[in-house]
């Protein structure tokens, strides 16, 4: 009886939403990409310009904010759907382009194809996403609606069959949901890849009157923003996944733990929760069923270690955010000592898709050991930065060279840093490894939460290792000996090497310390902190040795091991751009009119090299820092 009510209830809700969305499409609809990436690039001004111009011209058009489509390199972006034209997406938007589009496209029916990036629907005039090389590799499950729907209006999600998985869930037994998770082979996407079905089973089988569900959105890796983007672009699919999980394990209360450095994500999630509650999709007697579950946002204060589950729970309980020894596991004794399922943002989003399309469908995607897709933030020295979703098993080479379209400025590829500060640097020869949790760990890196930084010939691997270690050392909670003190000693050794003060014995100590910290630390922050060092020692030992034995930084990045030099043969009397660019007046004019650098004064700021006109290219970096004889 109840079940029919839930489905009916939902059908009515969905019909209303569809009606609303359809009416939106009757006139011109402008969707402005307004996730943090878009806003940082100037989306707010673009949106304001659209609003003003349309009002000014007295046109009839609707403007809404959407999330991130994943093409961060082209932000700000806007999609214009005008009846009679294919929906067109414009990149690199600014106020001028917004004005032009209102005038020409909205006013005069000229879509200004020269500024368009892509069409959203198949047509015979303009290319669509499927014409992009990356489309051949991408497979969007959790990013499917991101960038196309309004994250602050639940009707957009409902109209795209949102919460249909919840209705389906209510018609199933909790055990069936859990077996679907086990059968799907879904592994947690927070970094460690723990089987979701197993975690849920343990939680379900632990008797307790109160159980909790927590969504870990404490994303903290430098250069990673997948979770933020998902929450900013489509928060309801995460909420729906949490509802399904709560139903399966028997929980009535859940929290989304978002770091407060993500104000937009916090706000959008709160709005989404409120709207879901109003529709009867959260709260007591959901869709008039016997199932009750409510959600709350918990704002974390931004400590990296609080992404570790036991530290996260400590911080929620008002204690210091330090990890605890396990067992007992969270699924047995978590928040306030109650059985707690803690999964990542993306994990819950996959749950929604698995219930909708089936465990078998999910298993077909990806690899045997890790079914499904992986979401990466592709950043660093790569042409197309952005958010990509590819099936597990895609190779790093496809990610960097096909989807990312390679290294810009004719530079040579050196490494990918994968898995954030806990990950590793993988060289050219590992690029053909099909990516999944296990293959990456074997290569010395980790999947982590999906940060992928591309490095080129100008990046010094010792300096990169030092950079990531500096991060983990600062973010170490300090509880356990290995992490608190070990990371500091490793950092000191790396600093010495980048200053040219290292010895070969340092490399042995570094290797030993790194292995012991990996084996001996209390939590995964410490256990993975040595990965950048272990992988760079394994794959780029020659760079360490060059620093130590020759006082040379092969990438000419370590300031203590380089000097700036103006090649007289290339310099000209007729130019003095570099002189003006130098902040410390280290550049002087020689008697012959050419320029030279006073090495005593030079602070190695790189300005002269950047400003020297390309027809001269007279400024070079030398390592080891020895002036040539003239």
């Amino acid at each position, binding site marked *: 009886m109840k079940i029919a009510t839930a489905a009916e209830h939902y059908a009515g809700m969905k019909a209303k939403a569809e009606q609303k969305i359809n009416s939106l499409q009757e006139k011109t609809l402008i969707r402005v990409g307004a996730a943090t990436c878009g806003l940082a690039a100037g989306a707010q001004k673009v949106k304001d310009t659209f609003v003003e111009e349309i009002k000014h011209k007295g046109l009839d058009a609707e403007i809404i904010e959407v999330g991130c489509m994943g093409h961060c390199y082209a932000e700000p972006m806007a999609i214009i759907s005008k009846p009679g034209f294919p929906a067109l997406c414009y990149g690199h938007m600014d106020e001028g382009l917004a004005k032009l589009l209102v005038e020409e496209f909205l006013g005069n029916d000229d879509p200004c194809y020269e500024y368009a990036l892509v069409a959203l629907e198949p047509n015979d005039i303009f290319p669509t996403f499927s014409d992009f090389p990356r489309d051949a590799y991408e497979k969007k499950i959790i990013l499917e609606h991101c960038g196309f729907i309004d994250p602050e209006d639940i009707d957009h999600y409902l109209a795209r069959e949102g919460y249909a998985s919840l209705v389906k869930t209510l018609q199933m037994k909790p055990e069936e949901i859990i077996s679907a998770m086990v059968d799907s082979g879904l592994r947690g996407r927070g970094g460690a890849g723990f089987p979701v079905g197993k975690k849920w089973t343990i939680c379900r089988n632990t008797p307790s009157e109160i159980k909790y569900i927590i969504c870990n959105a404490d994303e903290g890796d430098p250069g990673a923003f997948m979770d933020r983007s998902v929450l900013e672009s489509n928060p309801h699919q995460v909420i729906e996944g949490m509802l399904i999980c709560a139903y399966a394990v028997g929980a009535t209360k859940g929290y989304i733990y978002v770091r407060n450095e993500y104000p937009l994500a916090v706000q959008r999630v709160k709005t989404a929760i409120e709207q879901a509650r109003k529709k009867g999709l959260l709260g007591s007697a959901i869709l008039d069923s016997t199932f009750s579950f409510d959600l709350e946002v918990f704002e974390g204060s931004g400590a990296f270690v609080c992404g570790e589950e036991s530290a996260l729970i400590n911080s929620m309980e008002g204690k210091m955010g330090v990890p605890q020894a396990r067992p007992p596991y969270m699924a047995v004794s978590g928040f306030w000592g109650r059985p707690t399922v803690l999964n990542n943002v993306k994990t819950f989003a996959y749950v929604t898709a698995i219930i909708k399309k089936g465990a078998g469908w999910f298993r077909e995607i990806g690899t045997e050991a890790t079914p499904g897709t992986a979401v990466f933030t592709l950043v660093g020295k790569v042409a197309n930065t952005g958010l990509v979703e590819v099936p597990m098993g895609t190779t790093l080479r496809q990610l960097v060279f096909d989807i990312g379209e390679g290294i810009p400025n004719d530079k040579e590829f050196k490494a990918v840093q994968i898995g954030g500060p806990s990950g590793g640097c993988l060289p050219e020869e590992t690029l053909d490894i099909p990516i999944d949790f296990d293959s990456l760990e074997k290569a010395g890196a980790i999947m982590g939460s999906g940060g992928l930084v591309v490095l080129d010939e100008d990046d010094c691997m010792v300096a990169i290792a030092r950079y990531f270690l500096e991060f983990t050392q600062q973010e170490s909670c*300090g509880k*356990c000996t290995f992490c*608190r003190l070990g990371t500091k000693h490793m950092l000191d050794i790396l600093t010495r090497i980048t200053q040219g003060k290292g010895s070969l014995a340092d490399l042995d100590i570094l290797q030993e310390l790194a292995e012991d910290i990996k084996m001996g630390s209390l939590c995964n922050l410490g256990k993975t902190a040595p990965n950048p060092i272990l992988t760079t020692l394994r794959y780029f030992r020659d760079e360490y040795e060059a620093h130590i034995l020759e006082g040379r930084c092969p990438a000419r990045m370590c300031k203590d091991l380089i000097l700036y030099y103006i090649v007289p043969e290339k310099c000209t009397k007729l130019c003095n751009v570099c002189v003006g660019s130098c902040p410390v007046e280290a550049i002087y004019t020689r008697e012959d009119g050419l320029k030279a650098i006073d090495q005593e004064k030079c602070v190695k700021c790189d300005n002269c090299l950047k400003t020297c006109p390309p027809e001269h290219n007279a400024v070079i970096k030398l390592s080891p820092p020895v002036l040539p004889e003239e």
Partner: protein
Amino acid sequence: MGKKITLTIDDRQITASAGEKLLWVALENEIYIPHLCAIKEETRPAASCRLCFVEVEGLSRPVTACTQAVYEGMVVKTRSPRVDRLVKTAFELLLSDHRLECNKCPKNRACELQKIAKERKLKLRLTRLQPLEKEVTVDDSMGSFIFDPSLCVLCGRCVWVDQQEVKVGAIGFSRRGLQRKVTTIGDIPLAESPCTGCGRCVEVCPVGALSFTNQAKPEGVAVNS
């Protein structure tokens, strides 16, 4: 406690109650395992000093004895090349952050670090690492005892007795990373804190960080216990 079980530690058959933590079973049977942070009464061990590593048959990595529950048929080795290496490194790491002036230390000859060094034949000086410099303020405001953070190994025993046993709550951990320390709320001197001067924290300190001043040693308290 659970039912009686039999386990083997270093080829010795030992009877214990199921669920007891391995560290205490070993220590009560006079099998030494290095340890600093472990507190028997604590149900959820801190496991922070990382010194009590042992090998348990069937487990792929060394585990900390303070967190490992014993079970029937368990086979334990307190020493192995991997365990020795971890203990050696953890010990040297602790020494690198500990002022090494044993002859001037109030706990000389009664110090747990010295005991570990003796038991495991480890050097009481740094062989691979440079000492970490840190600025500390010695708190002698109480008169009866002093707190010298440059000797503190952050085991947390003092914090535990203060909060859980005498329930005063004068001290706790604060800051993170290298700055982590035992301190009062607002870093005020102990004499201005709720500290009652009971001296329990001094008694449990395994090193010389908390020590009674000679003139004010409370009656009947054995400092070097």
